[in-house]
């Protein structure tokens, strides 16, 4: 039984020029204890999905259509009071660039304690402190650093503290939005291992958002690839990354630079950016796709099943292209 299932969800931002469709008819679900990764182009709607699941969309945003079922509750018509009851407690988020969000004038431990108290108002001071120490142990920051100020932490420690804060109430679902972008590879590797270890130990569900396919590949079991508001391919990590089917997924994977990429790595030309305000009714990638089908921009191509778990949102011609430059 899925802990979260999202069906045909669309989200828009009201802008001066009209409604910007940041999330366009997406569906996915996640079982308890599983990890699901979202990858995709900058601006494709990843953070918007996370914010929606936290009930934290800004005022100019609205859910245009669709259902979100979380622990058998419909989140779409939740009131702010209802959100306050589950936010942080059942679902928590590690925000993009959260390292800077620690308040510089309060001790880090105090800030995490506050998160604990909010959802456990009955806790005694000792209970809060015990929980705080446990969290510090979990994310492997020495206890004696609890009363330090944020600027006394290194970037990696701040990021661990942010993770501790998200874990403060042992949520069932945790959303991690680019939790390691600011960190160097050594620290990044430690943090990713930490997240994975805790997620498995506590049997939490994890939605992991990143633009970096190597990072997602390290942490997640299942993958959704997004492009311009749409999910365009999904499957297990192995399926999506070893036999990508959608032309965008192929482009994304082939532009990944590693030390042994050769100099003639296939570089996609500056791709056209689909207009999210006046979005076409079909496939958003069609303006860049060399299937050259005029149909795709008018009618959504629909899902093609590659295996029981692996699916691509594409037309037959698109899938049969071996390469797209």
């Amino acid at each position, binding site marked *: 039984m899925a802990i979260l299932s999202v069906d045909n969800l669309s989200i828009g*931002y009201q*802008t*001066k*020029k009209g409604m910007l469709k940041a999330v366009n008819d997406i569906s996915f679900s996640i079982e308890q204890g599983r990890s699901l990764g979202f*990858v*995709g*182009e*900058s*601006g494709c709607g*990843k*953070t918007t999905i996370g914010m929606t699941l936290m009930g934290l969309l*800004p005022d100019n945003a609205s859910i245009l259509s669709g259902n979100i079922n979380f622990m058998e509750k419909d989140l779409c018509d939740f009131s702010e009071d209802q959100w306050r009851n589950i936010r942080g407690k059942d679902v928590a988020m590690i925000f*993009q*660039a959260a390292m*800077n969000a620690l308040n510089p004038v309060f001790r880090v431990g105090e800030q995490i304690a506050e998160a604990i108290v909010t959802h456990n108002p009955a806790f005694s001071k000792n209970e809060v402190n015990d929980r705080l120490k446990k969290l510090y142990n979990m994310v492997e920051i020495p206890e004696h650093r609890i009363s330090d100020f944020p600027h*006394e932490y*290194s*970037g*990696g420690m701040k990021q661990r503290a942010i993770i501790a804060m998200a874990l403060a109430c042992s949520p069932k679902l945790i959303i991690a939005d*680019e939790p390691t*972008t*600011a*960190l*160097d*590879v*050594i*620290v*990044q*590797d430690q943090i990713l291992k930490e997240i994975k270890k805790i997620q498995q130990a506590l049997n939490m569900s994890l939605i992991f958002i990143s*633009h*970096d*396919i*190597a*990072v997602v*590949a*390290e942490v997640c079991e299942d993958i959704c690839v997004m492009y311009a508001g749409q999910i365009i391919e999904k499957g297990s*990590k*192995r399926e999506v*990354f*070893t036999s990508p089917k959608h032309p965008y997924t192929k*482009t*994304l*994977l082939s*532009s*990944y*630079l*590693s*030390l*042994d*990429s050769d100099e003639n*790595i296939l*570089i*996609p*030309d*500056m*791709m*056209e*950016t689909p207009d999210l*305000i006046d979005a076409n009714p079909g496939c958003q990638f069609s303006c860049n796709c060399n299937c050259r089908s005029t149909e795709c921009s008018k009618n959504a191509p629909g899902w093609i099943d590659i295996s029981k778990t692996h699916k691509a949102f594409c037309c037959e011609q698109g899938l049969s292209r071996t390469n797209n430059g």
Partner: protein
Amino acid sequence: MAEKHTHIIELKGIIKEYHPQKSFFSKGENKIVALNNINLGIKKGEIFGLVGQSGSGKTTMGRLLVKLEEPTKGTILLNKRPVTHLAGKALNNYRSRVQMIFQDPYQSLNPHLSISETILEPLKVHKIGTIVQRREKVIHTLETVGLLPGKDYYNRYPHQLSGGQRQRVAIARAIVLEPEFVVADEPTSMLDATIAIQLFKLLTRIRKEFNMTFLFITHNLAAAKYLCDRIAVIHEGNIVEVDSTNEIIGNPQHPYTKKLIQVQPGFHFNHLS
């Protein structure tokens, strides 16, 4: 390239120390040596990589180069002239020729300025162009960094952009004056591979077009390998190795460089389980 190549920027014996305020917990001397005797020359028109792990002093070096901070000791030269005591007009002139793309667009973009105001600001400060010309320049620069169509971003505010879009605004702001020398501090850390590589291609193109020089700061060696002509490896405030990119990657000498190469994440389909 021949020895004749002139250095646009030189660092001579640069030392940067910080003295954070003493606290109850840290007694005695409290000194951080962020840069320890740096000697480097960057050639005109090259893309020079500065690679090292978190806290090694990369951003500090960038901040010294754009004169946001002064070195504790040592001299920085632009086109052979020391820049230490620049003031008034001369300093203003320096600021228009040397720009920095800051590491974290969530912190470096002013939330109260719209995107157009953000990118217009340097043009205004340096009194460049008419109002109409400035507007065109801003839209053109937005499109150069891949924010298309530029008009769509003109009146938005940073909080209305995704992380990667903010990062591109920060790049646009730094290149709008067509400076001679740009410090790019992790300019693509928030961008997916496809957009990052397009931006690298763009940097290579504007380097040629305007003969711009770049200091590219990163902890991603693969990106440095792709983009840079030469690379310096920095470790705890010391430059441990400087060489052509091919030598650094193919024939690293210093143990720390070897270690850095070892820990670079690869993405190999066949390693996936």
